[in-house]
């Protein structure tokens, strides 16, 4: 479905590669050289990561500093991030649809794979973040959502912030989809704002081969779309204004 006012504020695709995938500090630069026509701006962030290792004496934690390269499109709405064994592709609003996002994911993945062969995938995730603003100082959640906090008759029904979530298993618990609805800051006067986050991720590490990773993303997208449709009512769709 396509909307005149799509609620998507960010789509994220993230790969975390196995330690068998050879990695060195020049990889990010090599990726940039190949994508700089589309992602000409380059920034970097120094990050701290906590590494947990199991040993004979139990668990130990080490703090490791690493650099993450961020490559951005000219309007900064689309970015590729390359970190230690990590590749992430983000798209901010205006989101131009899966048919435009998918090729970017594939391009980024194939580019990285051409520089260092991906030997295994620890984790991967496809995440959609929707920002929904509904007119009114007060709303009845069930008029707009099929997934919302249910408050028993003994509880106050006026509330401010809230957060509800559920994990759905798929493919014999190989994949999970985490669905969350939280309150957000309204950007329009007398509106109620909410964020819906749908995060489909590979729960069993290395259970999908690298060659199948883009197919997995396609399936993740299909599931996310189904869940999104399952969460909202026609009244909410009227706010988005359906085009098809």
């Amino acid at each position: 479905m396509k909307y005149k006012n799509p609620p998507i504020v960010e789509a994220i695709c993230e790969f975390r590669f196995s330690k068998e995938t050879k990695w060195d500090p020049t990889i990010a630069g090599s990726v940039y050289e190949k994508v700089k026509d589309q992602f000409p701006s380059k920034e970097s962030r120094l990050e701290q990561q906590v590494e947990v290792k199991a040993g004979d004496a139990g668990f130990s934690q080490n703090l490791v500093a690493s650099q993450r390269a961020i490559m951005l499109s000219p309007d900064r709405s689309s970015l590729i991030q390359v970190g230690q064994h990590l590749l992430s592709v983000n798209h901010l609003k205006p989101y131009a649809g899966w048919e435009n996002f998918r090729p970017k994911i594939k391009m980024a993945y194939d580019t990285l794979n051409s520089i260092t062969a991906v030997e295994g995938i620890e984790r991967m995730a496809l995440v959609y973040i929707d920002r929904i603003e509904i007119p009114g100082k007060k709303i009845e959640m069930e008029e707009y959502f099929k997934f919302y906090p249910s408050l028993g008759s003994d509880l106050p029904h006026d509330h401010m912030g809230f957060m509800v979530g559920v994990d759905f298993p798929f493919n014999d618990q190989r994949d999970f989809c985490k669905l969350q609805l939280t309150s957000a800051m309204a950007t329009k006067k007398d509106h109620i704002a909410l964020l819906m986050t749908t995060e489909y991720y590979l729960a069993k590490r290395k259970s999908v081969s690298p060659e199948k990773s883009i197919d997995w993303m396609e399936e993740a997208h299909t599931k996310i779309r189904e869940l999104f449709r399952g969460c909202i009512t026609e009244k909410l769709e009227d706010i988005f204004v359906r085009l098809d």
Partner: protein
Amino acid sequence: MTGYGVIGSFGNYRPMRTFDMISYELPESWRAHLYERIGFRLQNTFTESSLSEFIIDLPDLVRNTINSVTIENSLLYLQYYLGFRFQNPGEVIDYLQKHRGLYDATLLACILTEEKFGSRAQISLELYKDPEIDDQYLTVYVRQNEYETDIIKEIDAICEEYAPAMTGEQGYLLVTTDFHPPLV
């Protein structure tokens, strides 16, 4: 249905983290510094466990992934629990979405400003747009009913503290006052 509060975890196991592990010599220690200040500021509002896992959706120390949810949640908590004003929240959100490297500095500047002026000023996070040139940046405005004589000195001290967190980042952030009365 299960209620829970961890956002943006990408389903990964989150190892326990402690602030005393963080080396304050590293540039990224600003984030650890920020966590501590937020924890201190909200310690009377929430339990320790709520703070560490549920209340402020701090970007994960393990992955450092800042996304739209991270940004929106943090701004919402500034509004809810620390009384920040947002004249045009959509502009602030959009700016931070596109300048995520400023996220730490922004939160740190907000927390430091609130620590210093929270009880005696209105604090507003806005996007300043220069009317003469094509320039815009985030601004934390401190506004008082009766301005104190040393307000600029105090604001300068805040700026000195958060400025290193902006090093090398795209975009800009300023704590200042326009000497206007608080917004109604």
